[in-house]
């Protein structure tokens, strides 16, 4: 539920001599009365943030339960009058929504596993091998992390379509089977694996591949979970590249189906169905995130702290 246990922050009091070494999570002896108001104010801000952050999601959920008539009513209702699941049924009937969810699972799943493999192998070399130019190559790879895909979109489209892969699943996935962030993340975690462990395996005559798979990889569970969640989310949500390379609707990932649904029905009394689609398309990534959030958030946080 949270990041590493809070070490501490400056207390909200400035008029009391601090007790050095006090556990600031313990019941507080030294806090004066005025800080109670401060805490109340902090709670008020916390609640306000939670409400602002949740309100659009609340609106999404109740909108999907409304009838088209209620959805378009002015002023809007804040609670659905006669909740119905009809919008969910329609989104699956009117467009190949189920098919596109399967497409997304396939595309995001295969790409993520490939990224995990390429990142672990490359991260292992960058963390545990020595050779001239290693650091230069590594930072060159990391630099590509900051390159927006839009910059290379035109030639990438050309490269992939001249391989005969436009409008194919492979064409959607191929350019994204490696991920600089993944290599960076894996190197950070593998660097913490003790060299002695690897040396011991080497003395026992294990091959490098075997060491990577049986000694190193099992120690990388948090990194693996972080990377898988990150890549699944990233590839599930990716819009620009599938939009550019795919033509046939049967191969659309769910975000593309959703965008077509939105643009075909702009201004038509159909928005409750579009909203239902948006919620369904978000559920898988939300669910994965909620299941793995403790590890995932810590892993992501680690990329910002060097």
């Amino acid at each position, binding site marked *: 539920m949270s990041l590493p246990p809070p070490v501490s922050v400056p207390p909200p009091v400035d008029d009391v001599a601090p007790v050095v070494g006090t556990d600031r999570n313990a019941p507080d002896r030294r806090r004066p009365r005025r800080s109670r108001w401060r805490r109340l104010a902090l709670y008020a801000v916390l609640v306000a943030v939670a409400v602002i952050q949740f309100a659009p999601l609340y609106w999404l959920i109740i909108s999907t339960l409304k009838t088209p008539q209620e959805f378009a009513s002015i002023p809007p209702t804040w609670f659905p009058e006669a909740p119905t699941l009809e919008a969910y049924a329609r989104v699956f009937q009117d467009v190949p929504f189920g098919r596109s969810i399967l497409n997304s699972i396939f595309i995001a799943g295969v790409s993520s596993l490939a990224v995990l493999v390429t990142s672990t192998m490359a991260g292992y070399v960058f963390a545990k091998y020595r050779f001239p130019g290693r650091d230069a190559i590594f930072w060159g790879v990391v630099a590509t992390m900051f390159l927006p895909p839009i910059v*290379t979109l035109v030639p990438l489209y050309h490269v992939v379509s001249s391989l005969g892969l436009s409008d194919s699943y492979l064409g959607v996935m191929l350019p994204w089977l490696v991920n600089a962030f993944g290599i960076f993340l894996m190197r950070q975690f593998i660097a913490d694996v003790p060299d002695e462990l690897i040396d011991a395996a080497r003395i026992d005559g294990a091959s490098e591949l075997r060491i990577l798979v049986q000694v190193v990889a099992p120690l990388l569970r948090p990194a693996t979970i972080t990377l898988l969640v990150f890549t699944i989310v990233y590839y599930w949500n990716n819009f620009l590249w599938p939009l550019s390379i795919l033509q046939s609707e049967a191969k659309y990932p769910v975000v593309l189906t959703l965008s077509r649904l*939105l643009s075909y029905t702009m201004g038509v009394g159909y928005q409750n169905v579009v909203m239902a689609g948006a919620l369904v398309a978000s559920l898988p990534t939300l669910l994965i995130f909620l299941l793995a959030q403790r590890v995932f958030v810590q892993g992501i946080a680690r990329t*910002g702290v060097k």
Partner: protein
Amino acid sequence: MTTTLDAPGRGTRPARGGGAPTSKQAGTKKYRLAAVGFLSPALLLICAFVVVPMVLTFWISLHRWSMFTPLTDMEFVGTENYRSVLSSASHLAALTNTVVYVGLSAAVTIPLAFLLALLLYFPGLHGRGLVRVLLFSTYVVPTVAIVIIWSNLYAPGHGPIDNVLALAGISSPGWLSNPDTALLSLVVFNVWQMLGYYVVLLVAGLTQIPEEIYEAARLDGAGPVRQTVSITVPLLRNTLVFVLLMTVINSIQVFDPVYLLTQGGPVDSTNVLSFDIQRTAFQFGLAGEASAMAFSLLVLLAAVAGILVGAGRRRS
């Protein structure tokens, strides 16, 4: 490059990141083979799908070419594409709008994320974990879904934002259909979606600041504001620079809401670089011009990153 692998531990300089095993593997071919084998899938893919396209972007930017014909149909035109980009009002609007969008996003996101990080790092507040999860959860929701939610929140008539404003007697500015507010409305999506991600990065940075420094400052009589300004901000500098860099890189790529909702309008007010590049190439078939814009964006981004990284390094 990987074929020049030196046997580890044989007189090369010591490894900087993570000590490699030394004598035991000296001179064996096995390790070179393994290193090449492990590294080549990643490096080959990066070469084929990042490095080569990057070079091609520059090459194409010097040519007139419809991207749906073979590369051999390209006609060399020198810097003509760059000149035409710089003289087109629409492309210049895209550049200006991108700068405004990125600037506004950073100006709103970073102070807000910093204050929220301080709040969520505050000891003993119940429900912090829940708020952090709630903040971060929008980061994993597809932008397309977020665009759908917000376009409904902004909807004239039955949208809740206008109705709440109406209670206060404020009439709707027309959000996405008004050239003055359309870009701003897009900034709101972005902030709402990404805020939690930056808060998490900043909270992680806060945990790195040793408590003793605050203790010492308190003994010297420094109040919370003074401590924040004199301790937290300077010691968080690297994280703040990283967050700023990520904000710039993430918001420079804004595409989905523009493509889905405004198509650059009204009157070019939401035409941003990524949308303009995609439209110029894929709808108008002007790959040369699109590549000139893309390459300019790359140069701009490298300059911004260089300045930020330099600023982060100088005082640390």
